[in-house]
């Protein structure tokens, strides 16, 4: 580790590693710091990833992480009614996140970035209203590292942006509390994602069964951070106890986590600082997926960082280019998806059962991508008590 870099990236998840790789490919001197001893672990993720997402990001599928093909999904209403969609081609994978994250960090290193695990950023160096560097704790030593730009990719537990005056606090109404098992269990349809909805099953969220092979699955739950006095673990254990064959599943891994499901931050930059990924609340608020969003934002942040440093201007005004381009590409759609989440969380189980009768699987997948919301609004309008929710969608 040197005393000074062009860019210091805090956090080696998909957002941080993509930022670091792209910035290094543009010739910048980059330091990528991860506080945990192992990049990619523990995972806090359902591990779904789409073929289209990989294409958009230019990430080449690698058999070390594309461990199971996904061709469609079953969405299960509270009354058990299944709304299914199976496409004519493969649409995604369930991935091995630990390997995915590690390979992204390896790519960043190969591009020339310096990567350091178990190195924790404990403070920022501020001067004249600019972020000028970070304080790092590494194996008992405390060091100061200068940076022209610091990238806060420190995830759901984000603090870096807050130290610089951007309020990235995860409000309880806008975070899901999540819990998850990886288990060995015989699966009926190993190429389909299963999602179970219901206010008693998972208030403001869902239970997922994402197959990682014919007899291994990522089985998890997300519930609203503010909606219950019971824990995510209690909800998931109750669901598993009631559902064969999962109640006989052999648990090989246990994880917990928080999923930002609010609107994206109103401002992604400050003087000498860019915020990326979960820290910037760049997540799909309906399904909670963040790997694509963080990676996309990170690549953009890396390009803008290179431009800013080439021009010798790391002011907020210059870095706003990242904010503007991100909002045009992803911000508006994520905001629409956030509004959809706010509408859907008002629905009772009876409403959800009614929706399941009216909708196709294609509809549900479209909604999750922020599309066909007019159709959803029309269906909600037919129920007088949902007119308010419907109007919020328009």
């Amino acid at each position: 580790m040197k005393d000074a870099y062009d860019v210091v990236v805090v956090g080696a998840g998909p957002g941080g590693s993509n930022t670091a790789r792209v910035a290094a490919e543009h010739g910048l001197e980059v330091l990528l710091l991860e506080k945990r001893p192992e990049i990619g672990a523990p995972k806090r993720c359902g591990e779904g990833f789409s073929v289209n997402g990989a294409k958009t990001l230019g990430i080449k599928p690698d058999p070390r992480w594309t461990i199971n093909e996904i061709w469609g999904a079953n969405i299960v209403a509270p009354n058990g009614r299944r709304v299914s969609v199976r496409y004519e081609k493969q649409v995604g994978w369930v991935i091995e996140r630990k390997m995915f994250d590690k390979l992204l960090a390896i790519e960043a290193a190969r591009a020339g970035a310096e990567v350091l695990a178990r190195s924790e950023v404990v403070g920022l160096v501020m001067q004249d209203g600019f972020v000028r560097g970070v304080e790092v704790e590494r194996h008992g030593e405390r060091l100061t590292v200068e940076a022209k730009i610091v990238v806060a990719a420190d995830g759901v537990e984000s603090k870096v942006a807050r130290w610089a005056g951007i309020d990235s606090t995860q409000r309880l109404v806008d975070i899901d509390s999540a819990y998850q098992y990886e288990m060995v269990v015989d699966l009926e349809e190993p190429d389909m994602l299963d999602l179970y909805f219901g206010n008693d099953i998972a208030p403001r969220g869902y239970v997922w069964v994402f197959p990682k092979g014919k007899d291994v699955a990522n089985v998890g739950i997300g519930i609203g951070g503010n909606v219950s006095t019971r824990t995510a673990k209690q909800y998931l254990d109750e669901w598993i106890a009631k559902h064969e064959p999962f109640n006989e599943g052999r648990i090989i891994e246990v994880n917990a986590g928080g999923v930002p499901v609010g609107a994206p931050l109103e401002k992604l930059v400050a003087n000498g600082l860019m915020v990326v990924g979960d820290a910037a609340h760049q997540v799909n608020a309906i399904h909670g997926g963040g790997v694509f969003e963080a990676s996309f934002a990170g690549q953009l942040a890396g390009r803008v960082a290179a431009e800013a440093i080439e021009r010798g201007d790391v002011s907020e005004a210059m870095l706003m280019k990242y904010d503007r381009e991100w909002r045009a590409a992803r911000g508006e759609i994520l905001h629409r998806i956030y509004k959809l989440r706010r509408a859907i969380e008002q629905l009772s189980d009876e409403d959800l059962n009614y929706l399941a009768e009216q909708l196709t699987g294609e509809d549900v997948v479209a909604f999750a991508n922020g599309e066909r919301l007019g159709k959803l609004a029309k269906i909600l309008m037919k129920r007088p008590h949902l007119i308010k929710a419907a109007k919020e969608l328009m």
Partner: protein
Amino acid sequence: MPRKVDYDLCMSCGGCVGVCPFLALTLEHGIKLIVDEERCTDCGSCTRFCPVGAIREA
């Protein structure tokens, strides 16, 4: 009184660190959750969020 962590239950997921409005929580090395007793206001946000019920009133 500041909140207390039950280390037998805590999974070190870090979600509470992002939730805390007072920057009172730190996940040291990504492993050990520490409550800053000076900053904690006992608001209970972390307790409500925690997926496993690991943060309690003192």
